């Protein structure tokens, strides 16, 4: 096979009661070997104690998010060949409690999402079958922001998440944006109260690290900017029907 070669993989190891350390392995890599393939090979053939997490293994579940050579990536869709030569360094996501080796506790992700009102509140009066034009402004605003797989890479990359535990983080703010634009949702007022608190929208510094690492190509940064624009219009009393505020023009 082309591109086959011996690759050095350094993996951050830790188990309760021990010290964090780097452990060095070597794997035979083919043209299509992914980071996940390398970890599976190490666990199966060299070190059965290595702990890491994956589920779908084809880029739909986001369970295998980790930091590879200093950048958040999904291990299942990252080929070693695409990372260039040299050694490979793999460590767990930042800003989540470490459980073991590459496995972190994702509970803070869910907690931040829930705290930011990241779920539709059904309207008691709305028709069950909402008519929403496929090409209308509501869909145009929501569609590019909705395909989040919940991998948590944006929280790991975000400088504010590590600094302020009350900051909802990029994924939750991105979801909040889609809900504030959703005419079916009845939870907007409560969500605005959270979003306009001292620890939410105002805290994003716009560095864009979340957008840089999103494996789905979403832009939480853009969603946050749009939420701020909506908040401004709302404060100025320029809201549309059902509490929906028109978004700023595209290009943000």
């Amino acid at each position, binding site marked *: 096979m082309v591109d086959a070669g011996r690759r050095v993989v350094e993996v951050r190891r830790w188990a309760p009661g021990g010290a964090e350390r780097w452990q060095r392995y070597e794997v035979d890599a083919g043209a299509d070997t992914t980071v996940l393939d390398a970890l599976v090979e190490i666990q199966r053939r060299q070190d059965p104690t290595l702990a890491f997490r994956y*589920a779908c293994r084809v880029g739909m579940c986001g369970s295998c998010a980790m930091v590879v050579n200093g950048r958040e990536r999904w291990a299942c869709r990252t080929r070693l060949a695409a990372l260039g030569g040299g050694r490979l360094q793999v460590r767990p996501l930042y800003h989540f409690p470490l459980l073991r080796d590459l496995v972190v506790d994702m509970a803070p992700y869910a907690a931040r999402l829930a705290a930011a009102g990241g779920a539709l509140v*059904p309207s008691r009066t709305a028709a069950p079958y909402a008519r929403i034009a496929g090409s209308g402004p509501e869909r145009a605003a929501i569609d590019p922001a909705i395909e989040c797989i919940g991998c948590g890479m944006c929280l790991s990359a975000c400088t504010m998440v590590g600094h302020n535990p009350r900051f909802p983080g990029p994924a939750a703010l991105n979801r909040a944006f889609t809900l504030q634009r959703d005419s079916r949702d009845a939870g907007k007022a409560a969500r605005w109260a959270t979003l306009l608190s001292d620890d939410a929208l105002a805290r994003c510094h716009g560095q864009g690290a979340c957008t840089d690492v999103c494996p789905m190509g979403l832009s939480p940064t853009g969603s946050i900017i749009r939420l701020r624009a909506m908040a401004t219009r709302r404060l100025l009393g320029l809201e549309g029907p059902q509490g929906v505020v028109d978004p700023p023009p595209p290009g943000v």
Partner: protein
Amino acid sequence: MIERLDTDVLVLGAGGAGLCAALHAADAAPSLAVTVVVKGLLGRAGCTRMVQGGYNAVLAEPDSLDAHLLDTLAGGGWINDQELVWTLVTEAPRRVLELEWRYGCLFDRTADGRIHQKPFAGQSHDRTIHKGDLTGIEIMSRLTEQVLRRPGIRALEECRAVALWLDDEGRAAGALVLDVRRGRFVAVRARATVLAMGGGPTMYRIIACSADKSADGIALGHAVGLPLRDMEMVQFHPTGLVVPGSLMTGALLEEGLRGAGGHLRNGHGERFMARYDAARLERSTRDLVSRASFLEVAEGRGTPNGGVWIDVSHLGAEVVERTFRGMVKRCRDFGRDLAREPVEVFPTAHFLMGGIVIDATCRTAIDGLFAAGEDTGGVHGANRLGGNGVAESTVFGGIAGDVAVAFVEARAAPRPGLAALEDVVRTLTAPLGRSPSPALYDLQGELRAVMWDDAGLVRDGEGLRRALAEIERIETALDGVGVPPDPALNTAWQDWLNLRSQCVAGRLVVTSALARDESRGAHFRRDFPGPASSLYSVHVQRRAGDLHVWREPVALTRAAPEAATPHATVEIGD
């Protein structure tokens, strides 16, 4: 040694079926405690989130419930349980609207704002509701959010059920759960239990389904003596990506590529479908295209990596990039340019049609135990239509939740004994005390190989009997294999447990395939290449340690084969 937890409704599994069961139970009775056991991370384990194509539901004329029923029965080779199918087609429209207004899903719309429905495999009308080509992510993300905002639901993340718990009268009383993170066992006592762990043909060499599945629900149901039906029916999808040496192998390339006019070629460059289905060529049905590709490779006409080529480049690179964005990206991550060149594909094990016998209210043969989704059999018969899978899981999951609540309200808490669970713990922890060995993964590879070679797309009696002996050898060998001693987050131990379940499910597939001496739907016997004149389902059940296999005639309670109308021939979907 065994920790204890009490709950009212215990839901095992957290895909579309499990989360719908939990949400329905919590909303029907907010004061009840609902506990969901998730093998991986909440909302991200299992196959519902891998759904690309969509959700079949009848929303508007000229489509009709009868048409959806007949399409599903014809697709299923007429061995479906017709009462389950009728429940599916009548409840699906309600569930889709519930997913929208109650849970927040936003499916694709037409220009005038109605839910968009697209044509899909074997269906007489445009019926399939979708969110782009990532419908499953939309459904699972929204269900997960709703679970998080309901205080009555507690999710046990990275926990897996390893045994069902019965009381002295043989009624369901909960489950023994292994907390994977801590490596501790928890006996969860429940007044009603819902089994929704999602089947999954991961005992095959090449798979499309989520790799975290291991047919645990099938194995657990079988262990407590539940009858299972049509376990021989395993769906293979024709176009799984070939990625040599990578777990990515078997990942689906959606059938829309063939529907849109894609060509399949063998290693010699021939469009081989002309020899198998001259009229429909690449647009033939899923089972036929899969079998044809398999035979081309088996007869020495494969590509360099043992597959066939799919080529859509003649449609125009710009069209392919726009229409199949997700598929193009999936290929590009692996250095393949789907828009401009042929890509190697091969059939991939996708779905278990067979499973635990249930009635239309998700009741099983055990009092207090309900089941829904891919763990169950009968809805899809011999072949599942694209778009009926997520409909099944959400429809029956919701029903199971409702029915479990009604059951709980009429029942006192069971008082099961712990002794049986202590035996299970001793058996399951045995490998922790043996020295670790990579032989575990040799055995895993051997099971996958024999299932693929002898119980896969083309079967015969001799091969199936060989597979049965091989599975027995692997199960015996597994009893001697060790794993590292620390039980917490122990991947090797989890894989040992997975392989146990996969052996059980594999044995049920092979045993049932031997009992069906005909070819129908996904099940093809080289030694019985035609369909039998009678319609029957194959049942298998463990009784006093022995495997009993029998046939039951299909009850044509809603429609008979002659009522079927001609069907669309283009297969598109998952």
